[in-house]
């Protein structure tokens, strides 16, 4: 028996779940797919009194399009997202990011909301969300609110969710025709967390110059971060290898203190970030110029 003693509740409505999470008598934690929380329970790094299991809460597993947004319920599994033709066609970067998360055996249970709430610095969804301008919906004791992804990730494994709040939905704008995108990472083995990665979108203006470029790096700092300086280097320029490489170096140079661990040193991560960003910009610009079948 690995986890410390705990109780388990399986509410069926968001209201019940929020009430359980805010029980003043007990330390309660939300349980989604368990692919991050269960390891912490098994290792006893987390010892909550109560797990509020969201699996049976109704209305949290949709995947749909509404007014230019792809809306995914927090409990939609990554496997469901991966298999959604809507996501593949209308939000191909999100689809691509999904395929990079773990293995099918993990994606069968891991959820969209779980990855956002976990906020692992090397996770794919948070970076894609920041690059794409996604939003997060959360419900707490005082009602619902919407949080832009760029304001959601506050620090290492830390989000803007209040302890008693439940993340209910992640909404990502569809990729409009003409916007190029690229999602690239390097990891030791496909399905592992990234040592470094980058999520990029590029638009081309009427004269064929880059505009509205967005770059989000992950696996290199405590939170996925936009590389604003690098974006400025690219905007207004015609696509070209030299400018993209320069932007890649600028993106990497702006990383404050790259993460370092047994898998990759800080220097290596910085190097990866530069190279990946340069290549991703080139790929995104090519796709922008060739919207069909990109």
């Amino acid at each position, binding site marked *: *028996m*690995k*986890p*410390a*003693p*705990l*109780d*388990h509740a*399986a509410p069926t409505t968001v209201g019940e779940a929020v009430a359980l999470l805010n029980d003043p008598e007990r330390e309660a934690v939300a349980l989604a797919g*368990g*692919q991050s929380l*269960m*390891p912490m*329970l*098994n*290792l006893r790094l987390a010892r909550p009194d109560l*797990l509020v*299991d969201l*699996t049976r809460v109704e209305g949290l597993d949709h995947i749909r399009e509404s007014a230019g947004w792809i809306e995914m319920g927090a409990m939609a599994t990554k*496997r469901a997202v991966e298999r959604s033709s809507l996501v593949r066609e209308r939000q191909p970067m999100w689809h691509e990011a999904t395929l990079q998360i*773990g*293995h*099918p*055996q*993990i994606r*069968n*249970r891991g959820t969209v909301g779980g990855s956002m709430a976990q906020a692992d610095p090397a996770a794919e969804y948070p970076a894609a969300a920041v690059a794409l301008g996604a939003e997060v919906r959360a419900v707490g004791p005082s009602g619902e609110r919407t949080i832009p992804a760029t304001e959601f990730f506050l620090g290492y494994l830390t989000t803007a969710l209040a302890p008693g709040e439940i993340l209910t939905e992640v909404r990502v704008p569809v990729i409009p025709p003409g916007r190029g995108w690229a999602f690239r990472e390097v990891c030791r*083995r*496909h*399905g592992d967390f990234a040592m470094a990665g980058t999520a990029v979108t590029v638009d081309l203006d009427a004269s064929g110059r880059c505009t509205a470029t967005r770059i989000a790096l992950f696996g290199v700092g405590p939170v996925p971060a936009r590389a604003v300086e690098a974006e400025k280097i690219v905007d207004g320029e015609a696509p070209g290898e030299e400018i993209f490489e320069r932007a890649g170096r600028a993106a990497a140079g702006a990383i404050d203190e790259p993460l370092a661990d047994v898998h990759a040193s800080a220097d290596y991560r910085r190097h990866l970030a530069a190279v990946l960003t340069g290549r991703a910009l080139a790929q995104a610009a090519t796709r922008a110029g060739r919207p069909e079948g990109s």
Partner: protein
Amino acid sequence: MIGDRRIRVSVNGTAYEVGVEPRTTLVDFLRADLGLTGTHVGCEHGVCGACTVLVDGLAVRSCLMLAVQADGSEITTVEGLEGPEGELHPIQEAFLEEHGLQCGFCTPGFLMATYEMLTDDPKPDEDEIMEVLGGQICRCTGYQGIRRAVDCAIDKLGGTRPADVFGAGGPEGPDAPDAPDADPVGADGAGEGSAR
């Protein structure tokens, strides 16, 4: 002390209604409470895949799920692969023939992951196969034998769904019979197979 919860699960076609402590993982429930020690347990944090079982047809880590969460589910473990006379399943035969196992510790996980993959797609491409196998760790055979075993299993099945090999009624088969309630083995009846 938190009291037991009653759960109803079907494991390899046998229905159980039993009490479990909420913190019990599904793998511990299968091994210790039901005595189904064919499912192995290694890392207990999701990485190795030794504990992979099918829950409602999906290959999942049974160390990352609580038994209470399986309430109402149909579970298939490696014990559920064999035929009515105890014959090996073609996927098992393929692992045997192609040297897809050595010590066998990882094998139940590889078998169940392969089973789900071939249920999903009887002719998976190289990328699909490598992705699924990449989610399972073997520390002794070497992966080439396992990789060949998957090809061999695809050939042996020849497009038949893994559940239909022994006729309808196999695990996840369309007409899985509702087995009568069976008394689960007590928690301490797991002695022989629970060495970790």
